[in-house]
């Protein structure tokens, strides 16, 4: 059982001033997940009649992408995983007893409360073109189109993105290029995505800019912070798609 000195961002609303609040959290087992440590803190706060710290979380198995904390300066903390799959033993083993917790900050991710941010900008990027325009109904037989396995695998690697926003939080420019490129690349590698590939990349990049995300300066921090190890190769793919949309042959 370990004790941690926790400092956590408290901000009562979108326009309020925030501050780092100090807490001593006792009785933490190495098998507890990071969010269970915060549950523990929140139970203490509730018992004292104080408002618990708000943070986003849902599936707690690393797939929904809701959890979003910057832990000691790193999006999702020191390991390549989501905040919910980070365990306290990872601090215990490295004798880290002070933990600073902050939201995923970016101008395009305004804070709603405490560590909860608004990531709807990502949804709007997808709405602007991150789909295949096919209505429910009479799609051709699923095996009508053979897709080479390597292409399908590459598409899958890109499609594994969980939309958590760690790439934006980790980027000094708050760029969303890894997120946007993952979707562009997923659909660009499949024949289903071919018909709309020109408009897609164009429209998604425009929306990304409009939402106020920064530009990519190829630091690679996004890839390092990504819990699903989405590769910056996708950014090169997006760039190729972008050039193609400008100068490539119209099909």
């Amino acid at each position, binding site marked *: 059982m370990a004790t941690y000195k926790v*400092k956590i961002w408290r901000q009562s609303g979108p326009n309020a*001033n*925030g*501050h*780092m609040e100090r807490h001593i959290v006792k009785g933490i087992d190495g098998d507890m997940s990071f969010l269970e440590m915060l549950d523990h803190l929140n139970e203490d706060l509730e018992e004292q009649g104080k408002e618990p710290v708000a943070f986003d979380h849902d599936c707690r198995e690393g797939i929904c992408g809701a959890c979003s904390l*910057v832990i*000691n*300066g*790193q*999006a999702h903390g020191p390991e390549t995983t989501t905040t919910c799959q980070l365990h306290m033993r990872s601090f215990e083993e490295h004798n880290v007893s002070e933990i*600073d917790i*902050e939201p995923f*900050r*970016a*101008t*395009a991710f*305004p804070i709603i409360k405490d560590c909860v941010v608004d990531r709807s*900008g990502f949804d709007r990027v997808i709405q602007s073109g991150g789909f295949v325009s096919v209505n429910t109904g009479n799609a051709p037989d699923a095996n009508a189109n053979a897709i080479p396995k390597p292409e399908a695998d590459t598409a899958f690697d890109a499609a594994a993105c969980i939309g958590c926003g760690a790439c934006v*939080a*980790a980027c*000094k*420019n*708050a*760029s969303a290029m890894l997120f946007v490129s993952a979707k562009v690349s997923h659909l660009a590698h499949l024949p289903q995505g071919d018909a709309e590939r020109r408009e897609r990349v164009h429209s998604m*990049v*425009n929306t*990304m*800019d*409009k*939402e*106020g*995300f*920064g*530009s*990519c*300066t*190829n*630091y*690679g*921090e996004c*890839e*390092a*912070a990504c819990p699903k190890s989405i590769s*910056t*190769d996708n*950014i*090169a*793919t*997006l*760039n*190729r*798609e*972008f*050039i193609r949309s*400008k100068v490539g042959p119209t099909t």
Partner: protein
Amino acid sequence: MSSNSSNSVPCGMTTVGAKMLVALTGMALILFVIAHMLGNLQVFLPGDELNQYAHKLKSMGPLLWVARIGLLSVFVCHVGLTIALTRRNAKARGALSSNEIQIRATGERYVNGYSYETATTASRFMIHTGIVIFLFVIYHLLHFTISPDHPPVAGDELIDVKAMVIEGFSHSIVAGVYIIAQLALAAHIYHGAASALQTLGLRTDSTKPGVSKAGILLAAIIGIGNISIPICVLTDIIS
């Protein structure tokens, strides 16, 4: 979160389009730097080659001006877009509120901060090395091209470039400035070259190993090539 005039990219470009122009102009500038270096390295040749090369350039007449204007516009485009993007990026990251500045002043480690995991030092200081190069270019033009204090060459209006170079670099401060600027340039190219290939979508599975080496190689060649001249002057290898 809609854009406003101060955080948009010039000429209605997207950030991706702007980055591509930065990459293209950067590559053009690298080519210029290489050509410039190859010209200068003729200082190591025993005879009058450097001066002849300089005179040949000078005698190009209007063509020279076309080249100069072309180079200048590439340079302005590269610098201007980079400044616009950098400002935009700072906005995207979010300025510290006065409250956050206060909190940070109390010694908080991470308020609105982030720790780097993989970004190279060169990549993090691109704008800084860029500014150093920019200032250096101005100094360099004043020093060697525009400055009227060239030592005259007997019986001709042309100048003795080789003598001028040797004379200039024999001052350790001048040589020092050049060396520092060339180190900044090498660092800039180290990240910039690889980054430009990525931005232009030229980094693919097959080119990947080459791309990361391209930056190192170009930086090393240009750095060593350019720095060798003041070093050799200072150590009297060229005289």
